[in-house]
């Protein structure tokens, strides 16, 4: 999709599945992320932030591909709204997780200061090698709609 969806088209995007993929927490990668985050190396991949990083890295679309489903590009300035992560079992260095998910909400809103924008929610789940849910991450994206 390249055009900005109308409100009906926007609603129909709810339920769209992500292609998904797998993500392995390689020790060198985890160490460098913790270094960038000023977090102790001993934290490993246990921080909820690793669930977000793995989920979005293996969701099966690039960010530009995700924007394109909503008729937007990086130049339109999509912004992160909220992020919510629940950890069922702390993620482990060396382990491989399967990522799956879908678009869970998509609504058009109008703000007095912000103008028209679309608020899109998506959920990504991480399952361990036994198929058990390890973590779930639900995020929202704000798409400014300056042309509307």
């Amino acid at each position: 999709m390249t055009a900005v969806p109308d409100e009906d088209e926007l609603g129909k995007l709810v339920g769209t599945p992500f292609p998904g993929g797998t993500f392995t927490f390689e020790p060198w990668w985890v160490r460098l992320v913790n270094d960038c985050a000023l977090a102790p190396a001993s934290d490993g991949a246990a921080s909820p932030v690793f669930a977000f990083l793995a989920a979005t890295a293996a969701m099966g679309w690039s960010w530009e591909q995700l924007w394109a489903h909503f008729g937007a590009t990086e130049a339109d300035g999509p912004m992160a709204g909220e992020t919510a992560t629940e950890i069922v079992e702390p993620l482990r260095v060396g382990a491989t997780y399967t990522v799956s998910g879908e678009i869970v909400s998509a609504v058009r809103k109008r703000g007095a200061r912000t103008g028209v924008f679309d608020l899109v929610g998506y959920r990504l789940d991480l399952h361990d090698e036994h198929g058990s849910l390890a973590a779930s991450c639900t995020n929202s994206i704000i798409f400014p709609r300056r042309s509307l």
Partner: protein
Amino acid sequence: MTAPGDELPAYEVGPVSAEKMKTMSALMRDANPIHFDPAAVRALGLGDRVVNQGPLNQSYVVTMLTRWAGGADRVRALRLRFLGNVFAGDRLVAGGTVTAVRGDGSGRVADCDVWLRVSGGDPVLSGTATVLLGE
């Protein structure tokens, strides 16, 4: 014993490093130049300093919780709203307050309000966390 109303020890961060942002862009395969090219930030009218990645800002909140609770594996849920940008050179402070203590399937947990803000300035993140208590 942890109780509602307890203040979580503040965690001070900074100055935020532009070099770590570059490494993080590579690790995340994030091509957005606002994290490594000041010209891209200027073009957006956001000033001359590169913008920190959201996951790094979230991590500072997690580290604040980790220092209090005894390990990142104790942070079982985290919900954050993005309120503003962090720029290279900023100094930040993360903190929070216990709002409830309860039992769940894994033991006693504390629900907390948490936040990250620029020192002496605007809030950057605000939200809630659930932390497994070791007591």
